């Protein structure tokens, strides 16, 4: 089949939004399909939104047998066989309207843009043969704001067999971008309340140097610098697999994430228990308290208790790690399921 994968992009900015497309591309090619990947630019400025949406509308992909659309506003592209794998709305106009993340005033002008955007999104999504989402959270938003029914299709990671369980050392690792909204600082703050000698390793690249520098200072101020490693750099896939193979547990505490997040899934493939917080959003669709990990309020003391518990009760940690691994199959997270649904 000739399949066009359509998404929007910001030049020179990488991240999970490209992984879902590019991994699917490889898997589809391996399955014998012809694939064309189409990344078109999109800038979120309210006053530039509609002319760009018109551009998406003019994209002509008649040569494809079907198209699969990902990041907004690629779902605006018209096609006789359009599938949408929706990963998020333009959230400032949706669930983040009443939040500091909106980024523009709540006035008649912007309300007008918002209402028109909702109508255009609803119409474009309505054209699709099928709408999938990457999480229950996103499905709920599609239902609430657009009245669109969608099927949750969890994005798998690429070549998951790379991840495995080898040992359980004394370290809780957190491997994701070092960013304020990923809240590595909460883990450092928790460390000083820990009674056990549990250690922390925070690895990843940051979009700025401020946050990693702040983390280092925080560790010094809290007197826990000897128990935390802050590794501010891009972690290669092999190294990541090694870190997860040997760690005690994996922590991932994003603020209201759209989906469970690749770090969660990677740790589960390595059969490690997961540590997260009650406000982590889509992460909670995967992590179940005391079953495959520990879910605490986003507070240092509560996190510290959970960290001690993981350190002290290795049998429980081991058991929860195994459950995390079993959860992957339970949720049907895998490429064969993805292909089956997207190509149905």
């Amino acid at each position, binding site marked *: 089949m000739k399949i066009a994968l359509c998404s929007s992009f910001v030049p020179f900015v990488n991240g999970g939004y490209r992984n879902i497309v590019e991994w699917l591309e490889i898997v589809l090619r391996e399955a014998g399909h012809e694939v064309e990947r189409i990344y*078109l630019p999109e800038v979120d400025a309210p006053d530039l939104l509609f002319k760009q949406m018109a551009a998406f509308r003019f994209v002509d992909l008649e040569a494809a047998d079907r198209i699969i659309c990902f990041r907004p506003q690629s779902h605006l592209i018209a096609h006789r066989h359009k599938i949408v794998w929706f990963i998020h709305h333009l959230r400032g106009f949706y669930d983040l309207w009443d939040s500091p993340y909106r980024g523009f005033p709540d006035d008649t002008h912007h309300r007008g843009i918002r209402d028109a955007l909702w109508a255009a999104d609803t119409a474009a999504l309505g054209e699709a043969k099928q709408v999938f989402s990457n999480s229950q959270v996103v499905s709920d938003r599609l239902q609430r704001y657009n009245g669109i029914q969608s099927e949750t299709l969890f994005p798998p990671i690429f070549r998951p067999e790379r991840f495995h369980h080898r040992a359980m050392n004394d370290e809780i690792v957190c491997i994701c971008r070092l960013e304020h909204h990923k809240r590595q600082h909460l883990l450092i703050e928790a460390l000083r309340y820990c009674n056990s000698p549990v250690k922390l390793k925070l690895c990843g690249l940051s979009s700025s140097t401020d946050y990693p520098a702040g983390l280092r200072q925080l560790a010094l101020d809290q007197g826990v610098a000897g128990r935390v490693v802050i590794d501010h750099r891009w972690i290669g896939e092999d190294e990541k697999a090694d870190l997860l193979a040997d760690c005690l547990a994996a922590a991932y505490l994003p603020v209201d994430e759209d989906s469970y997040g690749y770090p969660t899934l990677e740790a589960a493939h390595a059969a490690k228990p997961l540590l997260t917080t009650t406000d982590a959003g889509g992460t909670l669709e995967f992590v179940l308290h005391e079953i495959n990990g520990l879910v605490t309020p986003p507070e240092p003391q509560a996190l510290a208790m959970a960290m001690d518990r993981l350190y002290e009760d290795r049998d429980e940690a081991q058991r929860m790690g195994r459950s995390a691994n079993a959860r992957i199959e339970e949720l049907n997270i895998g490429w064969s399921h993805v292909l089956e649904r997207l190509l149905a």
Partner: protein
Amino acid sequence: MKVLVVNNMAPFVSGGAESMAAHLKTHLEAAGHEAEVLRIPFQWEPATRIPSQMLMARAFELQNVDHVIALKFPAYLIPHPRKTLWLVHQYRQAYDLYDAGQTNLPDGQIGDNLRHLIKTADNECFQGARHIFSISDVTQKRLAKYNGFASDVLRAPINDPELFAGGPSENYIFAGGRVNAAKRQHLLLEALALAPRNVRLVIAGPPDSVADATRLHEATERLGLKDRVRLDLRFLERREYAAWVNGAAAVASLPFDEESFSYVAMEAATAGKALISTTDSGGVLGLAKHKETGWVAEPHPEALATALGAAYADPKRTADFGSAARACWISHNITWPATVEALLS
């Protein structure tokens, strides 16, 4: 610098300009820049939809990009304050192909309006460009003739010059690259039949169609050339192809009215091989110069047969022509580092 290469794409068809864009990205990165390719889908049928495709390119917004290098219509219409054009071609069906009666634009007022629209948008884009480079003399002349814009010719470099180190002659004449009627490999076979018996020919490359391949096989049979010709009609890996070039006594390239130097001639000159071409081969004649870098014959079998024989008559002279071809090529300074520097200037 963050450099975005902007190109068209025809979904599920990969063309020459796509590979040029990919190589440009690689060489921008080699020069220490961040580079990415934006491929904008372009559908020109039916022609009445062309305005929507132009509008699409103009309505996209770019952020986080320091410099744009745009290659084709209508992708080059995308707005950016620092945009350099490396013009592969315009929408030729509104210009020279229209004049030649080969256009998909409708007759009458609608067609006239479309041409006017394309030309106006082009002119506005050319006016605002930081710098305009043309891929060939032909593209440069068209741009001057139809739009009145001056541009500098910046030819596409070869992508892997290190493969074409040259080497001793293994006594065959090589004709590589795509096989089709316009590249005229069949003419070489006709010439071979009239050339001295010691001349041998290797033709290797992908045929455009089954008919193109059949034509060469039949000619070889009909002219009784089986023991003097090797036909290897398929896509060759770069290393296989380079090995044929490096071992050749001389390289023949006789496309009809080629726009550019042609990769085949550029690669042969890089390898220091004498060139055999024809008087009507257009851009190839920028490198193939009669009795300087090889032989340029009239495009018929007798004249070409004389050229083929001459390449064997005096091996020392043939080798000297090869060295002269290499010197001629080097004098043009067509390399990726120089190209990247020009495109970012």
